[in-house]
């Protein structure tokens, strides 16, 4: 029985000792979900303390439904990223859809109107037989759910790699906007206050979803399909509107959605944060079917449900409001002073548990770590057996048409990315940019992680993820103000996986401290393994940036014929972990490119000041595929007609490293001839490597290296390749 609940004997003994008796089956079920990895963070909590979570703008750090960061003008942003990996692998459409639903609820629960969604998706190799099915299902699920709720999906990333063949990743980010003095928290306080359930009815779906997400997959994973919930985006839309309307009144004490571990989790967590107890009567819970046991009701993960504590005397008004929105709603309990949750079924007590034991009782595990043996084999690359390139045309074309680099319009055109009229920067540039209505401000959002780097060196890989995400924000004209992370790893019971985790979190923490960006929310997803094969460590980060003036908004594409093209940053001979080595040589080896944090910061500051002074008209981060791909993208990503460019690059390194290496902290900018001196002087003043490398114009991308032609391709053809590759694959 204990093992069926995914618990160890040790954990069971601990429950017995602390409770002073054996739990009944319902209580055991409660412990199994609340102490699961998914809800308790028992393997990760120790390390997560290393992340910086504070800053002058932070109004709410980790521990609530989402983090909150002040943006001035009496407004704040609420944001978080969360995984829905396991359900999406089993049932991609509903798994991804309910992932969107869950993160939306985390945001509007805090009183914020959700205004943007993003996602970070990882699929197996493009030629794996299940990949096409999974891509279509996940994208359809996100599209269907997000579009219906009227929250635009404004950006994201998609990568394909064989390491995700047996375990895809679906990480969903949401951001909401809230008056900074109207933030709602998930606590139950005020003895005698009524506890109201509202939203969809409770059914038998999703029972033990949290526990499923806390174990590896094996051959029988298909049998877990019934633990995946089914989403109802229309109900979610009603919840959003009803909640925001409710919060306009002064009735609410605390509010929380029912996510993982459903009614159980919200009841215990709300009591835990309030330092109170709750009495709950299950017969009043709106149910979808007859004959549900307390166990079913408490552990169901039916979607689109909320729990709210309102001030006594306001319950009838609240119920009337929910009925206006045609939502089920009922008073199901009351706040009590003793920190105990008592649950009744028709007056008979079925659960009686101390709040703290359930919420904080799981032992923090400091699991053993061990540097994995594979690193010895892969952490270096011998370039002597990789012949250098005489010309780069074929390589560039192959990279632009490879699924990781190809344009993702097939995906984002399935998402409504414009609704609510805020999206200034549509998908297809470094970051999404949204205006903040009634202010001059705008927000820039980006999500990023190169998991190949993290596989080769989790510490520096995680640092690069932060640095690159920050650079995306900077290139769009924003200053980073907060970060949220989704840490996707394998089975933490394996010391090698824990080592990856420890390294990645340390690296991320160090980078965040260096850039002075608080981590205000996040999510840990472990056990991303199938039949013992773990994914690459994937510590995905999403960074939110602020543009004090929305006119700072800058895009990646070249604008005018005759403009000059400049490269900020230094190119060195680094091919380790590159897309080039992977696509052209099928090799995943080497050290990820070196990241010089102080240089990165100086370059970011330079780029921002160039943008704010109106000196540059485009800025684009060099990432996967290096300078060559960045140049091509700046030529062909213009929403209307592509434009050519002629570049003369001086190099003392291998040609392939020069054009396709992924040296960090490089930004490609373009500016008018008149501004050349000003740009050069600014770069010189801060001591940053900067070179004018060419000119915008013509119908072709021409790159000469040391005076010899290396690439010469018509941009209209490059655009066709880049735009069409993903679509022709997934169809």
């Amino acid at each position, binding site marked *: 029985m204990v093992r069926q609940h995914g618990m160890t004997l040790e954990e069971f003994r601990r429950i017995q000792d602390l409770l002073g008796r054996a739990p009944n089956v319902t209580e055991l079920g409660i412990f199994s979900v609340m102490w699961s990895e998914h809800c308790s963070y028992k393997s990760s909590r120790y390390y997560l303390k290393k992340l910086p979570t504070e800053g002058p703008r932070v109004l709410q750090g980790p521990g609530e439904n989402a983090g909150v960061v002040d943006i001035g003008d009496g407004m704040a942003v609420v944001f978080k990223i969360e995984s829905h990996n396991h359900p999406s692998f089993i049932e991609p459409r509903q798994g991804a859809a309910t992932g969107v639903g869950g993160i939306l609820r985390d945001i509007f629960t805090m009183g914020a109107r959700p205004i943007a969604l993003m996602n970070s998706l990882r699929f197996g190799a493009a030629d794996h037989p299940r990949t096409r099915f999974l891509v279509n299902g996940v994208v*359809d699920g996100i*599209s*269907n759910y997000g*579009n*219906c*709720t*009227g929250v635009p999906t404004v950006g994201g990333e998609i990568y394909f790699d064989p390491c995700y063949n047996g375990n895809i990743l679906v990480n969903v980010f949401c951001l909401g906007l809230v008056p900074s003095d109207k933030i709602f928290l998930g606590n139950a306080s005020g003895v005698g206050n009524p506890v109201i359930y509202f939203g969809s009815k409770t059914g038998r779906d999703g029972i033990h979803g949290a526990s499923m997400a806390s174990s590896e997959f094996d051959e029988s994973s298909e049998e877990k399909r019934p633990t995946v919930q089914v989403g*109802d*985006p*229309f*109900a979610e*839309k*009603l919840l959003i*509107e009803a909640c925001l309307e409710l919060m306009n009144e002064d009735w609410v004490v605390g509010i929380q959605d029912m996510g993982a571990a459903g009614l159980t989790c919200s009841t215990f967590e709300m009591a835990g944060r309030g330092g109170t107890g709750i009495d709950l009567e299950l017969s009043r819970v709106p149910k979808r079917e007859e004959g549900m046991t307390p166990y079913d009701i408490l552990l169901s993960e039916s979607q689109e449900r909320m729990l709210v504590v309102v001030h006594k005397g306001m319950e009838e008004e609240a119920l009337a409001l929910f009925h206006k*929105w*045609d939502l089920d709603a009922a008073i199901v309990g009351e706040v009590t002073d003793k920190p105990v949750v008592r649950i009744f079924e028709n007056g008979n007590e079925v659960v009686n548990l101390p709040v703290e034991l359930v919420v904080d009782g799981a032992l923090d595990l400091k699991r053993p770590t061990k540097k994995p043996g594979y690193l010895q084999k892969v952490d270096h690359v011998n370039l002597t057996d990789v012949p250098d390139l005489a010309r780069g045309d074929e390589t560039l074309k192959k990279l632009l048409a490879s699924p990781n680099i190809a344009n993702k*319009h097939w995906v*984002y*055109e*399935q*998402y*409504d*990315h*414009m*609704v*609510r*009229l805020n999206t*200034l920067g549509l998908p297809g540039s470094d970051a999404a940019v949204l*205006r903040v209505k009634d202010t001059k401000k705008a927000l820039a959002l980006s999500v990023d992680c190169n998991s190949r780097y993290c596989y080769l060196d989790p510490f520096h890989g995680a640092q690069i993820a932060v640095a690159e995400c920050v650079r995306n924000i900077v290139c769009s004209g924003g200053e980073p103000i907060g970060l949220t992370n989704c840490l996707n790893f394998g089975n933490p019971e394996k010391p090698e996986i824990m080592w990856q985790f420890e390294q990645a979190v340390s690296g991320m923490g160090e980078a965040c401290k260096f850039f002075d960006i608080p981590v205000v929310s996040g999510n840990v997803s472990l056990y991303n393994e199938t039949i013992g094969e773990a994914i690459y460590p994937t510590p995905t980060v999403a960074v939110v940036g602020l543009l004090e003036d*929305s006119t700072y908004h800058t895009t990646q594409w070249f604008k005018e014929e005759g403009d000059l093209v400049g490269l900020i940053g230094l190119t060195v001979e680094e091919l380790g972990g590159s897309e080039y080595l992977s696509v052209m040589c099928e090799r995943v080896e080497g050290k990820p490119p070196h990241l010089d944090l102080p240089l990165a910061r100086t370059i970011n500051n330079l780029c921002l000041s160039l943008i704010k002074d109106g000196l540059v008209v485009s800025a684009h981060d060099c990432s996967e595929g290096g300078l060559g791909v960045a140049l091509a993208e700046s030529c062909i990503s213009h929403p209307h007609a592509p434009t050519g460019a002629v570049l003369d690059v001086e190099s003392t390194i291998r040609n392939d490293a020069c054009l396709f290496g992924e040296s960090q902290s490089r930004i490609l900018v373009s500016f008018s001839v008149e501004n050349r001196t000003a740009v050069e002087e600014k770069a010189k003043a801060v001591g940053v490597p900067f070179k004018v490398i060419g000119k915008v114009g013509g119908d072709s991308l021409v790159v000469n290296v040391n005076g010899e032609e290396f690439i010469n391709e018509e941009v209209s053809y490059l655009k066709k390749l880049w735009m069409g590759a993903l679509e022709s694959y997934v169809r």
Partner: protein
Amino acid sequence: MNCGVVVFPGSNCDHDCFHILKHVFKLHTEWIWHKGDMDLSRFDLIVLPGGFSYGDYLRAGAIAQFSTVMKDVIRFAESGGRVLGICNGFQVLVEAKLLPGALIQNNTQKFICKTVPVRVENTSTAFTGECAGESVLNIPIAHHQGSYFIDPDGLRQLEENRQVVFRYCGPAGEVTDEFNPNGSVGNIAGIINEAGNVMGLMPHPERCADPAWPNLDGQLIFKSIIKSLQSGVSA
């Protein structure tokens, strides 16, 4: 000039339409709740916005046609009031039989969100007077069930009465299959009723009418409506 924006529980472009009418065109604008049983006669224009009226798990707009507010809207339209249905609003108008034909799944079987060129086929309507003859507007679409269908007889009537107002086209106005994003019969993107006071279109003019973006093609439609109402010419 009084405008009303209908709010079904699943409307999600209601705020956008309200914003454009009220804050960009500075018109008196009110919300109209779907459960309300109200006299709409004080309005000059009713907008049915985009979204998913009642979830639209069945055909889009199939449930909305039975809503309380639609009884009022039908009455309003029958007495000559101007009604503009955008996206889901167009679907609702078709289901409510205020406009002929049907809107079915896109032939791509996918939701499509992107800006597309549409050709204005009739500039003598109360909704398009400000669009120069045969001009091409760039307007975003965002729908899953936007493929317009009508039987050949119905199509002939539409064409004869010049009820086809917008067609999907290429950048230079070419109306061909290549530039038909969703499989609509005759590339039809928007139509008007015979009386000329009810128009439905799948593209979202409210998404290109705010000066925060360079593309303001959608303003032409709102300006046309305002001008025709101000000049007092009945539709």
